[in-house]
């Protein structure tokens, strides 16, 4: 009881910039319904048709991964996977890879 059904993809491996980028890429592919290989990490979330409701959900899912509170407007402030990864990596002082 009170446990939500997992609708989002599990985060695998240690928290690194690379793993974060991979999770965002796969998450976006799931949301949009396209193959992972077709995701362009330099394209804006908005151009993929993600609305503000989804943006808030994604930042909520990310909170659980980085275990800290994030701005609900995060995806607007850092509108691409590359920008968002770079921001979180700097903010959390993440290694690029293990």
């Amino acid at each position, binding site marked *: 009881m*009170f*446990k939500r059904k997992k609708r989002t993809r599990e985060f695998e491996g240690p928290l690194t910039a690379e793993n974060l980028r991979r999770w965002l890429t796969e998450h976006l592919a799931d949301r949009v319904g396209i193959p992972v290989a077709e995701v362009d990490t330099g394209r804006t979330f908005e151009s993929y048709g993600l609305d503000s409701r989804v943006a808030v959900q994604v930042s909520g899912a990310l909170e659980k991964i980085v275990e*800290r509170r994030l701005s609900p407007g995060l995806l607007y402030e850092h509108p691409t996977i590359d920008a968002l990864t770079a921001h979180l990596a700097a903010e959390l002082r993440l290694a690029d890879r293990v």
Partner: protein
Amino acid sequence: MAASFSYPTAPGDPFVEFMRRSAQIKDEKLAAAIPREYFEPRPWRGLLGFAVSWALYLGAIVAMAFSPHWLLWIPLLVVAGLGGWGLHCIAHDCGHGSFSRSRRFNVAIGHIALLPLIYPFHAWRHVHNMHHAHTNNLELDTDWKPLPAAMYDRMPWWDKFVYHATRTWAFWGGTINYWRVSGFRPSFFPKREMRRDVRRSIWFVLAASALYFPPLVYFTGVKGLLLYFVGPWLATHAWFSATTLMHHSAADVPFLTSEHWTKNAGRLLLTTDYRYPRWLLFLTHNISVHTAHHVAPPIPFYNLPKAQEALKRAYPGMVRERDLKLSHLWTIIRRLHFYDTESGFYTDFSRGQVPPTADGGRERRAEPLRAAS
């Protein structure tokens, strides 16, 4: 799109002045101004507060049961609410670990003290810690954060209704809304341990409710439930909402984007304290001595007045204190509705800029800045 959070877009002198003061204290160790001995809890003093508030809460409810006329219910509900609010203030110390040195004891007292609100203690505690970590941060504060008008315009009608109501006529329901949104939702919390804590507190509240409500309804009926529980619950929320709203909303106190917000500004410059009469200070366990509390949350409530004096000596002119007047609350619910993306302060629902002065320009009528679109 990145520019969308670069607020305020047209900062005036009051904002610049605020940032100057903020820069002045940026690297200070504010809590060092408060003597160490004020951090020491005296659990008996805390328990006295706990007993006084339970007595007030239960006494008012018993008095309602024996009241000769229903008109007396109204003042008695205010008193019951004050008792329930006092209990919340005790739970508040428990949440900050300042009730006693024992974590278990604090958690136990905290859970019991929040029963009149049927508020899961750990849910409240973790949300409250988020409020402390980000006081008046436009993006991350959890309490009474004003929205930019443009964001409000894009919200679904129900969210609009709740926002509009809780910032105006239904301000007393603001904390009910927070309870609804985060009290029973472990997924609100980023850390796994937080979610585990919250689930435990929810079970405690459900168990206590299962033990208390059926006999209450059986012996006193629906009327008893409304009169002896729901009424005092609403009244407690009214005290809770009014107090917390007034602490962090004022026409001349900005909300800040992360770019401008600093920890020390959140601790020292963004709280307004109200001078309560002594009896009210006693019954609310010094909750209105609030700046010292934000500078050093581990200080027990009975040491806050002394701590506040020490803080005022160390930082003259920085601690905001006002006399307690209903007109302050009136200004907030009448005018302080939206975050003004231009000035960094407030606009009202008609998009009229509220002058960032102590009285929120009560004397003058501000012109709407732009057409309501």
